[in-house]
C-alpha cells in the first residue's frame, strides 16, 4: 500500500523552500497538456461561450497563484497600487516568467478610457492550435486572458479580460490581443490617487 509506512515524515508544503523558477519543461510537453485541457473541456460543454469561460476559469486559478508567487519571489512583497504599475507588471514580469519573453506591446485603448490592450504576435498557447471554421471566433487565448484576469483581480484591480484575434496585413497568422477593461472603481481610485 503506498504511503502507509511513512506518513509521519510528510512535511508541510509551506515549509519547503521556494524554487528559483529556473526549471524549464519542453514546449511540446506544455502544448500536449494544454491540448488535453481544451479537449476535455470540449466534451463538457455545448457551445463556444461556455468553452471560453471554462478555459478562462482555469487560467484565473493559474493567474492568482502566479501573482502570489511573483510578489513573494521577485518583488519582495511589495504591492502595486497604481494602474500603470500593475499593467507593466503583467506585461513584463508575468509574461517573462510564464512565457520566457516580455509581451510584444502594451497599448491604451483609444475609444474608451478604461480599456488597455496587451498584444502578442504568436501566443504560446495558440501556436499549435488551428480553429475549425465552424467554431467562429473562439480563441484559446481565453486561457491567457484568464491568467491576466486572475492577476489583476487578486491585485485589487477588477477587470473584464478577453482575447481576440487581430488580422495583420502581410502576415498569415493573426496577432492575438488581450483586451482589458477595468471596472469603474479602479478608474475612480486611480483618478483620486493622481491628484
Amino acid at each position: 500500500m503506498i504511503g502507509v509506512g511513512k506518513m509521519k515524515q510528510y512535511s508541510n508544503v509551506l515549509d519547503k523552500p521556494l524554487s528559483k523558477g529556473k526549471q524549464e519543461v519542453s514546449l511540446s510537453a506544455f502544448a500536449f497538456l494544454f491540448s488535453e485541457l481544451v479537449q476535455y473541456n470540449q466534451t463538457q460543454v455545448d457551445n463556444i461561450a461556455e468553452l471560453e469561460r471554462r478555459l478562462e476559469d482555469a487560467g484565473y486559478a493559474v493567474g492568482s497563484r502566479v501573482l502570489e508567487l511573483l510578489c513573494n519571489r521577485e518583488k519582495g512583497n511589495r504591492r502595486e497600487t497604481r494602474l500603470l504599475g500593475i499593467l507593466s507588471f503583467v506585461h513584463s514580469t508575468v509574461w517573462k516568467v510564464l512565457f520566457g519573453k516580455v509581451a510584444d506591446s502594451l497599448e491604451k485603448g483609444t475609444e474608451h478610457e478604461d480599456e488597455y490592450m496587451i498584444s502578442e504576435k504568436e501566443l504560446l498557447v495558440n501556436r499549435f492550435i488551428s480553429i475549425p471554421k465552424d467554431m467562429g471566433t473562439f480563441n484559446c487565448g481565453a486561457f491567457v486572458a484568464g491568467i491576466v484576469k486572475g492577476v489583476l483581480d487578486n491585485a485589487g484591480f477588477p477587470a473584464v479580460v478577453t482575447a481576440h484575434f487581430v488580422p495583420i496585413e502581410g502576415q498569415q497568422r493573426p496577432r492575438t490581443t488581450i483586451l482589458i477593461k477595468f471596472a469603474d472603481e479602479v478608474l475612480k481610485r486611480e483618478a483620486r490617487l493622481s491628484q
Partner: protein
Amino acid sequence: MAPNAELFTLTYGAIVRQLLTDLEDVDEVNKQLDQMGYNIGIRLIDEFLAKSGVSRCVDFKETAEMIAKVGFKMFLGVTASVSSWDADGTCCSIILEDNPLVDFVELPDTCQGLYYCNVLSGVIRGALEMVSMKTEVTWTRDALRGDDAYELQVKLLKQVAEEYPQSTLVELPDTCQGLYYCNVLSGVIRGALEMGSLIFSSNFLVKLLKQVAEEYPYKDDD
C-alpha cells in the same frame, strides 16, 4: 522559447482542479487523468522518436532506460532512474526524485485517494503501446502521500510483433502485375494530410510519411 516549468505545473493543477469539481469522485478523476495521459502518450512517442533519433531498443530493459533517461529529460527536464528489475526483465521501477508536476502541491484530506500524477502513468502506457508493447503502469510510491519519492512500476504484459497483415496472405497473379494492391494506404495518408488544417500538429506527420515510404516493401503511388 521553452515555457517555464511553473506555467506547466500551474496549468496541470488547474486541470486536476477542474476534474475534481466536475467528477467529484477521486477514482473517476484518477481514470480521467490516466486517459488524458494515454492520449498525450500516443502522440508524444512520435515526437520522442523524431527528436531523439534512437534506433529500436533491443529489449525491455533498454526501453525502460530510454524512458527514464532520455524521455523524461526531453519533456520534463528531469532525469529519472530505473531499478528493481525482476527475474525475467519484464517488470521494473522508474523513480523520480524531482517532479515538476507537484511543485507547490499539497493533497487535502478529502482527496487522499487521488493519484495526482496519474497523467504520467497514462503517458508511458500510451507511448509504449504505440511501439507495440502492452504494459501496465502503477504507482508504488507517491511523495504527496507521504513517501520520499515518486516511483512508477512498469510491467510489460505483451510484446505485439508488428505485421503488415495484407502482405502475408496475398499473392499477385500474373494478370494483375500493374496493381498496387495496398494503394488504399497511400490514399489514406494523402487524405489525412489534406485534412491537416484540423490536426493538432502537422510537422511530424510529414516526417512519418517519409519513414513509412522507406520501410514499406511495396512501391507507393504518389
